[in-house]
């Protein structure tokens, strides 16, 4: 990475960590629908998306490894909750399908836009991955939007359930865009246009879709983003997830798989 000076490397690492951790944790949560989906198709969909997300996180951890961090398995399986940089939205338990669907919509619309923006990154390794992932994530966001539209316009109960989840987790969704300490460096170096630009693009994309689904976005006076995840402040739900995810690995971390 010749074109990076040290501050660029620090900024790129911070960006990669939060993206990879988001994908690993949402991937694990998606996998919890395996065998439990409300219909077989949804069981398959969430399981497939879990596989995509965890695979995507691995290649982002591999980029971190190129920048001097430990290898992907070590990074994924040996950190405690306070060392993770995922947003809090992704760590909540799957709850009922209405919550998982709303979270899936919020998160995957943000991912679609983030990777679309990163296709033009000056960091070539990341731009290459972004070009690759965008085609995959397109399927995820299509899946989320299809169900939000169907259930939003379904009946009073389905609309009411989605509206309740939207109201309850809107501020957590805004927490995806928690600014990092190196935003200006990322922007100036052309690595990433920054979280504020991402949030703006996300709002422009999701608000019309939610309105089309007969769902109301909370009044801006009630917007209060839930930050903390990017700096290691997490809900009580993350550590038990990590304990479960690393249970087999922890039995013998030196095992060759």
């Amino acid at each position, binding site marked *: 990475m010749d074109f990076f000076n040290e501050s660029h490397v620090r900024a790129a690492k911070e960006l990669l960590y939060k993206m990879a951790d988001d994908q690993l944790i949402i991937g694990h949560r998606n996998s919890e629908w395996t065998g439990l989906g409300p219909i077989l198709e949804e069981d398959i969909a969430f399981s497939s998306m879990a596989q995509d997300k965890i695979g995507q996180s691995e290649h982002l951890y591999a980029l971190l490894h190129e920048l001097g961090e430990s290898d992907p398995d070590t990074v994924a399986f040996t950190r405690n909750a306070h060392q993770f940089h995922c947003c809090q939205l992704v760590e909540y338990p799957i709850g009922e399908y209405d919550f998982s669907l709303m979270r899936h919509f919020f998160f995957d619309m943000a991912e679609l836009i983030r990777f679309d923006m990163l296709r033009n990154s000056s960091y070539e390794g990341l731009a*290459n991955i972004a070009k690759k992932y965008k085609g995959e994530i397109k399927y995820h966001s299509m899946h989320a939007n299809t169900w939000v539209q169907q259930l939003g316009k379904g009946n009073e109960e389905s609309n009411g359930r989605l509206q309740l989840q939207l109201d309850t987790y809107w501020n957590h969704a805004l927490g995806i865009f928690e600014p990092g300490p190196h935003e200006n460096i990322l922007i100036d170096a052309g690595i990433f246009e920054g979280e504020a630009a991402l949030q703006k693009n996300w709002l422009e994309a999701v608000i019309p879709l939610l309105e089309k689904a007969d769902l109301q976005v909370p009044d801006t006076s009630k917007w209060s983003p839930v930050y903390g995840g990017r700096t290691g402040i997490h809900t009580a739900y993350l550590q038990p997830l990590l304990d479960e995810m690393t249970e087999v690995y922890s039995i013998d971390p030196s095992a060759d798989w």
Partner: protein
Amino acid sequence: MQTKLSPQHIREILKEVKDPEIPTISIVDLGIVSDIRVEDDTVFVELTPTFAGCPALKIMENLVKFRLLEEGIEHYEVRTSFDKQWNSDMISEEGLLALKKHGLAPPVRHCGNLDLTVLEHTPCPYCGSENTELRNPFGPTLCRSIHYCNNCKQAFEGFKPVD
């Protein structure tokens, strides 16, 4: 005359390596062999994944290594890279037929601008009808979707178009 270690020859050899999940298609026709180079007596093969989470990636790397060894090529380096990104337009014409032979609807050509609504009327690989429905954009493997044909009244799988 081709030497044994020419990239063209290596490409021919790799045409015998099949996708472990779709045994009718070779990895060359699938479009995932993104680079073949020969330097001195070492063969470099680069693969590019169809899907980032594809569990067959490592298996395919190993299949390539075995095939090279079978040909007596002992100096090789096989790696997976995102430097060139796979998309479904990289599947050869022969590859599209191979998918169909496996009972999978081939992905439509998208020329870099894929509108996923095309999935709603994917032609049935059995009867060719476009009177079909998308049942699920996700299927038994990451690269497949599930459809239903209203004409021949049966479910079928498609290989997903990806841009």
